[in-house]
């Protein structure tokens, strides 16, 4: 009998305390943001998909098309091609494609690059209607940034 009443007391008290927590929260400021209207700055260390580094002096890429990133990629999503252009000793990058549908953002390519020619982009708003939209032409993206 004593237990019966003490249970009512402790139980009731715990319920009131719980209500107190939510009631207090009701008047506390909101912690979320309304996403498309407000945006939080993302950290500079964010790892988006890869991009070619733009060398500010030469205004071109640093890539020497050695193919290390292609080899390092666990999912074979990088495809690069270098060609020897006329009058140049080394190969020049002519194709750099990233199949983002397979990419797991592990960063192995960036680490493997001997010239530090790759970086992570800061883009996270990636949505599209087709798979093909995620076959990025990284070289073209660099060209766009150049102009």
């Amino acid at each position, binding site marked *: 009998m004593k237990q019966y009443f003490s249970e009512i007391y402790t139980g009731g008290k715990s319920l009131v305390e719980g209500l107190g*927590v939510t009631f207090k929260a009701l008047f506390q400021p*909101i*912690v979320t943001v309304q996403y498309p209207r407000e945006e939080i700055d993302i950290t500079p260390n964010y790892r988006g998909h890869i991009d070619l580094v733009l060398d500010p002096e030469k205004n071109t890429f640093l890539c020497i098309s050695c193919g290390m990133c292609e080899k390092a990629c666990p999912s074979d999503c990088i495809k690069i091609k270098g060609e020897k252009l006329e009058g140049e000793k080394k190969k020049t990058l002519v194709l750099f494609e990233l199949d983002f549908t397979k990419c797991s953002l592990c960063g192995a390519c960036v680490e493997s690059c001997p010239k530090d020619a790759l970086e992570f982009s800061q883009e996270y708003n990636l949505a599209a209607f087709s798979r093909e939209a995620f076959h990025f032409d990284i070289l073209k993206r660099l060209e766009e940034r150049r102009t």
Partner: protein
Amino acid sequence: METISILPPELIRMLIAVIIIISFLFLNAIMMGYLERKIAAHVQRRPGPMEVGFHGILQLIVDGVKLLGKELLIPFKVDRTLFRVAPLLSFTPVILPLLVIPFSEKLQARDLNLGLIFIVSMGSVNVMALLVAGWGSNNKYAMFGAMRAVAQSIAFEIPILLSMLAVVLMCNTFSLKEIVGAQEKIWFVFLQPLAFLIYVIAGVAETNRAPFDLPEAESELTAGFHTEYSGMGFSLFFIGEYTNMFIVASVAAVLFLGGWHGPHLPYGEYLGIVWFFLKVYFLLFLMIMIRWTYPRVRFDQLLNFAWKYLVPFSFVNILITAVLVKL
């Protein structure tokens, strides 16, 4: 009366009242839906609906339009008649109790001298709708929900009635208007705190609200009795639930919180409705807060709670009340 007119004035009065009440039902569901979402959001420290209208105030209207536009899916092998009747059955009986509730001294569709009993009996029809919905859906989860609803309703009807009886004992009438009239000096909540508490707890259970929302327990039964309903079928249940909440809260306001009584207002016999609504929505606010705070009780615990705690306490309460009234 000696002259039989085609439309007696009483009938016209009732018709107008019903129309007002039905339109109020929808308005109440929209308001409650908005309130629930906003309060839940702020309890969880997020803004809630913000897009449609100022602070998302029109969100529920847009949602209603969406629900109207949705296809009424009728699953394979359901009992078609029962499946279609159930939402109506949940929606229609909730109109009737509102006819006898005194919103203010002069705003009452019909003052039945057995008003309280009328409300209780109409309220019990609601569980029929849940049973029919669960039975007709050809879904085991829905069936579970329906069965739980019936057991729960039977268990909690008794403490509700007993707590009401304590008030009736004090003022010797079942007419809601007279009960409110008896509270002019002091509200019954101060004389009958235990009955009030029992009524509120049992009322939350009667309306199938969390923590007693077993018939629709979404983490156990996906959506309980309305698992298979879509579009307007679902929203009729939804409106029915909110109206039930409103009825339970307004009966509480009438029985315990002094109905339309409050500080003096001009045209008090009509504007008493302001106090009435404030009391009702305060109780509804409390019910919403409770929903967003507690976990759900288990089925047998719920029945245990009703039979081992609420019923004995309400008997004791009635006994004490009877003795004191006699003195």
